[in-house]
């Protein structure tokens, strides 16, 4: 159905990206490289520019300077739906699901992979119906994978907070992404929900070999999952390295973890 999953994901490179909002510099010459198949965490205190960085990566926000490239393609000039078609999927910090059932939401994730247009769908042509059936099967598989199998036909509005958060993850996965951007995937979840999501992310990376960019305040999760960590503060990159290196970095301790450096953050 889709050959993107079989090939290794390309390198995602962020170079000297600067974003300004009317006098406020949200990102100031930020650079980092997401190596294929790795989990790259983006951390920093509130207002450090993590979500702005995600908005740049997914095309919702245009950088004033700098470039974002995926493989050989420059993303920073593309519209969001073109970036999605290249295999970059994201979730949001606050849940953004649409009206309807879990299935509806997951099938929205298949949008870029399907072709059926207005005419074919209105006339219910066999090609459109077949396509829908095949992709619905795959969406169901993904729902099972993320632990949403039994909620597949329930309205999203009735699900618990943790489940709705997972719907977003599953919807992003339905894009069969090569790069997955997760904006605080476990914020507001309880311990068992967190563990479950962490496990899913770990499995995904092992099975599908996709690159993951992760924004998260839960340091335990970051340290456990991430291969590389980039630390932002006031829009600037203040540290970069493996989780252990970053943990030792005095600049990080001062700016982000605070003086007692327990690694716990009220998410």
């Amino acid at each position, binding site marked *: 159905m889709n050959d993107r999953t079989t090939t290794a994901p390309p390198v995602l490179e962020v170079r000297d990206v600067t974003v300004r909002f009317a006098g406020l510099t949200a990102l100031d010459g930020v650079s980092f490289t997401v190596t294929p198949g790795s989990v790259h965490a983006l951390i920093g205190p509130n207002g450090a520019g993590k*979500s702005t960085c995600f*908005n740049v990566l*997914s*095309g*919702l*926000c245009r950088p004033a300077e700098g470039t974002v490239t995926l493989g050989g393609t420059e993303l920073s000039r593309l*519209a*969001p*739906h073109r*970036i*999605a*078609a290249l295999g970059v*999927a*994201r979730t*949001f910090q*606050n*849940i*953004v*699901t*649409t*009206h*309807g059932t879990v299935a*509806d939401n997951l*099938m*929205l*994730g*298949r*949008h*870029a992979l*399907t072709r*059926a*247009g*207005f005419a074919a*769908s*209105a*006339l*219910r042509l066999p090609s*459109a119906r077949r396509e*829908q059936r095949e992709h619905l099967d795959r969406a169901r598989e993904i729902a099972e994978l993320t632990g949403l199998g039994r909620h597949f036909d*329930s*309205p*999203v*509005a*009735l699900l618990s907070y943790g489940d*709705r958060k997972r719907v977003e993850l599953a*919807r992003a996965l339905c*894009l069969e992404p090569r790069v997955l951007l997760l904006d605080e995937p476990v914020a507001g979840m309880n311990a068992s929900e967190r563990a479950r999501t962490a496990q899913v992310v770990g499995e995904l990376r092992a099975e599908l070999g996709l690159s993951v960019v992760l924004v998260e305040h839960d340091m335990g999760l970051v340290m456990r999952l991430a291969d590389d960590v980039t630390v932002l503060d006031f829009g600037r990159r203040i540290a970069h390295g493996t989780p252990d290196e970053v943990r030792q970095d005095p600049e990080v301790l001062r700016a982000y973890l605070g003086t007692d450096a327990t690694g716990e953050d009220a998410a």
Partner: protein
Amino acid sequence: MSDRLLKALTRRRGRLLLLAVVLCLPPFYLDAFWLRIGLFSMAAAIGAVGLALLSGTAGQLSLGHAFFLAVGAYGYAWFAGEPGPGLPPALAALLAVLLAGAAGGLFSPVAARVKGIYLGIATLALVFLGHHVLLTADSVTGGFNGRSVPPLTLGGFAFAESDSELTVLGVPFGAEERLWFLGLALFAFTWFTARGLLRSRPGRALAALRDSETAAAVMGVDVARHRSAAFVVSSMYAGLAGVLLALVFRRVVPDYFSLVLSVDYLAMIVIGGLGSVAGATAGAVFVTALPLLMTRYADQLPLVAAPGSAEGAVGPTEAARYLYGAAIVLVLLYAPDGLHGLARRAGDRVRRRRSRTPADPTDVPSPPQPTAAARPKEHTP
């Protein structure tokens, strides 16, 4: 499992067949007055389904629906009639629908960029512009007096009063009886296509646009393209409704296609329940039939004066407007998901009661339906 599915499928087929038979009966039992109510309702339902797709599903308000109805109605009258190319009526009908779509397409640079309530304001211009053109372009539209509409003929069969008397099962088939079946066919086509759209890729993309433009965009939905496509499709349904209206009226006049008509269509989809085909139909029947029925039975209704009586009295048309104004307020206050939502909840209640009586341990309770249209919050990046 597959056995149950098969049973459910045949039950659905059976219900559809029954519905089709019931809908085919009125010409044999009801007089022209009731048939005209039915025909106006069908035409309104076709237009309302189009608007429901645009406003209910894609979240784009349009006050220009009357304009596209006019394009369809006048387009048909011009293509098929004199002055005009005088094409075969069936071809003229098709061209009129395409013309309405093209008119929607011409507006799409605006429709793709302007969203929600702002599009409503932008489309206001269309109604005034359209009305002005209808009044002044005499050679095409016939000006203030409008123009007569040539009847539709299909393979020698005229959907109008014709010289060759047609009697089916002892009932003489005049214009209304014949048009009834044409209306039914067009209405069925509208249901088939609109539901097909809503339940597949484009429909989901449009609903996503309404709920969160950002989420839709990052999931790969081309926002501008889908907005303009929704507008074009909605215009085409309006054009089809216009053609049917023209055939029923047998004469098109500019004053019918005013802003009030656009507002009527909005009332239909709000009363029926935004974004559902069944709801739009129910709302269309309610808004269309109510004034006609009240006019007919004005003398038997309290507080309603007969049409044309003393000034200051509330005539049936005004009374109908008060009634459906009240209906809109009631719907918005107590049933934001409209008649369609009310019907669904009532159905759920009946089903639950029925499943409760025979204690069936294997029966898994269905998840409760949301009581009101609960919608997730919009994300602002």
